[in-house]
């Protein structure tokens, strides 16, 4: 049978269907009109964002919530460059994504044509890989390869840049049944000797700690971590990205470790004799001063990425392999054990320094209470999507995380503006769950336009804006380390730096009016000022079938504690 000729644009849509795409996020433009022309008959849904950065974060949030690659389509030039922050965010956190960007026609490339940008060049440093497609015949195979690369090895974003004339060219090329890449073979198996050594170290440990990261979630190994912890009675600390990989209601849970981690987690890592690091990259936000990190421990480091082993912390035993594969074997080789004294000591630490906060002014809501209210109202089952800064740390600290893929946060890149669009992407991926975005007033203003997308699709997302009228984390650092000189970090028209030349007679305390903004976007808006009303409003908003924005006016001077200042060690931990 003669294979049918069709346009490159049609071949692309067919290939995306074959790749299993269910939702495509994006924004149109001149060099992708041909692709948009084919979308009406596509088997997947198209979701129109309001800014390409938003569309990229939606694809990212979808991928984090489901484990499936997020897919995004944008035009050339500014459309493509607007996604760079989204790509970098996904790249740092190992999130599988495929981004298709239009490009000017091949004959126009290099001529400074209208809306021309060298996307494959620009995105190089913030993607796992990129393709510039030069003929329609390459499209099906390139799409297959892009999805393979995005999801194999350490996941990451892949860009496919497709010139306009290539989209119009005819081809009969078919989607390949199998992908073969000559040079890329990321699957690595641990050696038997390494696994035996790991089991031996665990068996001999007196004060072991498991330290679980995002790699555990990516590998789907949360259950295996729980088995390991239970079998040998090992306390578990997580990274920010690892939240949800271990049930925080378990007595063995230490919560999050690192700069704003729990005292118990940081003390335990400081004192442990074997640190079992699973799917982590030892971020500087976790280790602080390298020389003083886990000084008594033999460190076992299991990670899929060979470049992350011995990068920041030198491991006693580095194993480059899939966490799930490793634990499947190791769990069968370790002995059932008890570490009664060690676990009791940790329990004492948890009692001594629990996660608590003072009420600074009576009648003023503390931001931590907002997270507790969300936890209560959602019964701890919601997908929490954070923005970046203080709101992110409080969400990490005060929500009782107990499911993988239900705490979505820009950990590595720390991208403000991530929360709102990523929550929308997550809700498209998980329509069965409550999705709650936790944002500050700063980050919310960066991508607020995307709220429209939730409203027009009738998504029951709850966008919580913790409004302290300032950029809280910057303000906190300025208070602690820069003599309380609040340069650039105050969002209220009052109390700004002289240099900003804001007229003193401005009659506003809060700008914008978040509730009016929410209503202008079609969302139901709540403003909470009274602490007594917080729980009820939160419950109503989360239970509601409507898209809700809940603005909570909070204590503006609240800080995130505990805190280990950057580059310092456990002994420098500050409790506020």
């Amino acid at each position, binding site marked *: 049978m003669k294979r049918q000729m069709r346009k490159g644009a049609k071949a692309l849509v067919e290939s995306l269907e074959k790749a299993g795409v269910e939702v495509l996020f994006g924004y149109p433009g001149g060099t992708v009109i041909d692709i948009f022309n084919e979308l009406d008959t596509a088997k997947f849904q198209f979701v129109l964002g309001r800014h390409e950065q938003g569309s990229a974060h939606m694809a990212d949030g979808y991928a984090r919530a489901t484990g499936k690659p997020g897919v995004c389509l944008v035009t050339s030039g500014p459309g493509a460059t607007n996604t760079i922050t989204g790509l970098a965010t996904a790249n740092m956190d190992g999130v599988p994504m495929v981004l298709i960007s239009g490009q000017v026609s091949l004959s126009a490339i290099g001529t400074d044509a209208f809306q021309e940008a060298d996307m494959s060049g620009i995105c190089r440093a913030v993607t796992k890989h990129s393709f510039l497609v030069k003929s329609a015949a390459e499209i099906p195979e390139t799409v297959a390869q892009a999805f393979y690369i995005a999801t194999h090895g350490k996941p990451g974003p892949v860009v496919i840049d497709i010139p306009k004339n290539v989209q119009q060219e005819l081809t009969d090329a078919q989607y390949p049944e199998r992908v073969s890449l000559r*040079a890329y073979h990321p699957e690595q198996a641990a050696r038997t000797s390494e696994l035996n050594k790991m089991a031996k170290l665990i068996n001999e440990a007196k004060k072991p700690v498991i330290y679980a990261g995002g790699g555990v979630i990516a590998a789907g190994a949360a259950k295996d971590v729980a088995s390991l912890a239970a079998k040998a009675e090992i306390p578990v600390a997580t990274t920010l990205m690892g939240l949800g990989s271990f049930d925080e209601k378990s007595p063995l849970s230490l919560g999050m470790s690192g700069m704003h981690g729990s005292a118990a987690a940081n003390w335990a890592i400081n004192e442990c004799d074997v640190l079992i690091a699973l799917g982590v990259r030892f971020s500087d936000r976790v280790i602080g001063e390298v020389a003083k990190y886990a000084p008594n421990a033999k460190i076992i480091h299991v990670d899929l990425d*060979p470049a992350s082993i011995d990068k920041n912390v030198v491991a006693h035993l580095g194993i480059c392999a899939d966490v799930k594969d490793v634990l499947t074997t190791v769990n069968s080789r370790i002995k059932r054990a008890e570490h009664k004294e060690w676990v009791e000591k940790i329990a004492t630490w948890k009692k001594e320094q629990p996660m608590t906060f003072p009420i600074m002014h009576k009648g003023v809501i503390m931001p931590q209470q907002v997270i507790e209210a969300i936890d209560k109202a959602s019964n701890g089952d919601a997908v929490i999507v954070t923005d970046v800064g203080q709101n992110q740390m409080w969400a990490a600290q005060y929500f009782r995380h107990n499911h993988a893929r239900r705490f979505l946060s820009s950990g590595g890149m720390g991208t403000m503006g991530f929360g709102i669009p990523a929550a929308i992407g997550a809700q498209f991926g998980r329509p069965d769950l409550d999705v709650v975005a936790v944002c500050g007033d700063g980050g919310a203003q960066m991508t607020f336009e995307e709220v429209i997308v939730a409203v027009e699709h009738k998504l029951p997302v709850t966008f919580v804006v913790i409004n302290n009228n300032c950029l809280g984390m910057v303000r906190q650092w300025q208070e602690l380390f820069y003599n309380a000189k609040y340069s650039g970090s105050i969002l209220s028209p009052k109390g700004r730096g002289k240099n900003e030349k804001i007229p003193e007679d401005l009659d506003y305390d809060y700008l914008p009016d978040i509730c009016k903004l929410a209503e202008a976007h079609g969302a139901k808006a709540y403003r909470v000022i009274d602490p007594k009303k917080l729980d009820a409003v939160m419950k109503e908003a989360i239970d509601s079938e409507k898209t809700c924005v809940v603005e909570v006016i909070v204590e503006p001077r609240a800080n995130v504690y505990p805190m280990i200042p950057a580059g310092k060690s456990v002994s420098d931990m500050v409790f506020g």
Partner: protein
Amino acid sequence: MNEEIYRLNCYVENKPGVLARMVGLISGRGYNIQALHVGPTEDGTVSHMKIDVLATQKVVNQIILQLRNQVNVIEVTSRKM
């Protein structure tokens, strides 16, 4: 650790953009490339890049691992010059 000149011998797929990815990964970390040679191997689909960088052993090891992670890279080895 002292900085010394290391030669990275890279065997990569002969495709557009690969050189830029390799060089960009090194220069993006602030390391200066002292010398660069790219040519075909007997297998025309594979290129051989010789990249000389001034760096410490630790940094070179890290760069090698990151270069090997690239999709079009077949093998990277190094030797002190």
